[in-house]
């Protein structure tokens, strides 16, 4: 039996990626989550972080939010913010970083602060 499954990243205006993969790591709301073939059906949502798709090579996408569904060996990631890390340039990251810093201070609820802090952390990680 093959140990591969399909992963699709779809944003409202286009299909960003669709490929076969061995393993995907997603920044789920409650922590990093690795998904392998034959995972049980799952629905979860994302916090800001990096999606890693492991196939021949590794592909990384930066996301801010999204919904994930896994069923019958099909991983579906619906997000409006996915960006391919390879195409993300320095100045854009810095711009987002500054935005995130300002954002963190203005959030009022715990949940918003939680999301904002992860966003900041991820962006810092990328920019290094």
């Amino acid at each position, binding site marked *: 039996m093959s140990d591969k499954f399909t992963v699709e990243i779809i*944003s409202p205006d286009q*299909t960003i990626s669709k490929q076969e993969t061995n393993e995907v790591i997603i920044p*789920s709301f409650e922590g990093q*989550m690795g998904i392998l073939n034959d995972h049980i*059906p*799952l*629905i979860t*949502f994302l916090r800001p972080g990096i999606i890693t798709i492991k196939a021949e090579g590794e592909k990384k996408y930066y996301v801010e939010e999204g*919904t994930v569904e896994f069923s019958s060996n099909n991983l579906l990631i*619906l997000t409006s913010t996915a960006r391919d890390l390879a195409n993300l340039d320095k100045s854009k990251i810095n711009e987002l970083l500054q935005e995130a810093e300002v954002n963190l201070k203005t959030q009022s609820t715990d949940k918003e602060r939680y999301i904002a802090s992860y966003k900041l952390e991820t962006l810092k990680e990328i920019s290094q």
Partner: protein
Amino acid sequence: MPSLDDLKKRIKSVKSTQKITKAMKMVAAAKLRKAQESAEKGRPYSQKMQNIILNLTKSINDPQNAPKLLVGTGEDKKYLCVVLTADRGLCGGFNSNICKLAKTNFKKILSEGKELNIITVGSKGHDQIKREYGKYVIKKFSFKDKKNIIFNDADEVGKEIISLFNQDKFDKCIIFYNNFKNVITQIPQAQQIIPAETKNLEEGNDQNFSYEFEPEEDEILEDLLPKNISTQVFKALLENAASEQGSRMTAMDNATRNAGDLVDKLTIDYNRSRQASITKELIEIISGAESL
């Protein structure tokens, strides 16, 4: 019988109209390609989103405690209709078709003695609907100055819908838009978005997943349902944009052809009356010469 000068003027004016319609057709054709592309690209997202919601609906064991956005308020008294139209005219039956469908529904809702509220998106639809149903319109949106539709616009509409729902202003929400099938065919559609339509649920697709939720199911639904509303509105907007351009293109193509026919007809009339006047002059000269 119009004089030669009059005919000449008319031919000129029809020709310049033809130029305009031709140009509009070209513009619509160029825009159509882009709009069609984004409509087709946007379809998977909304479909998959809808699928997740449907699967979730199936796995709900306790409808009493399920979120109201998903299963409805359990009542059927107040309706919110969202009519999505274009901001520009001159696109054939595009706006009228949506309004016609919407009005038939309004009539039905009112005749059943139910409460009706209307939100219009796009100024053309607003103009058509306010004539008869002006007092029911509670809010109007217009994205006239936007060149492309972005998700945030749809989100704005979606948030408004949800906030009205939370204020208990309606039990059911229906959106009206044109579904883009191909360049010549656009089908006006009414889609119920609150409570989520479960029509496709019965047909096939018997897989019943018991999902693992992380975090809790309620929390996910709370996040997902509002997003789904906006997504459905967004899809409707994209379909609409493509339909509008397609409809305008066909309409303008027809107009150009009609103008061409008219020019031909007028030219024949013009030539005929020119020939008639020449013949008349000749007869006058000849008969004048004979009488001498």
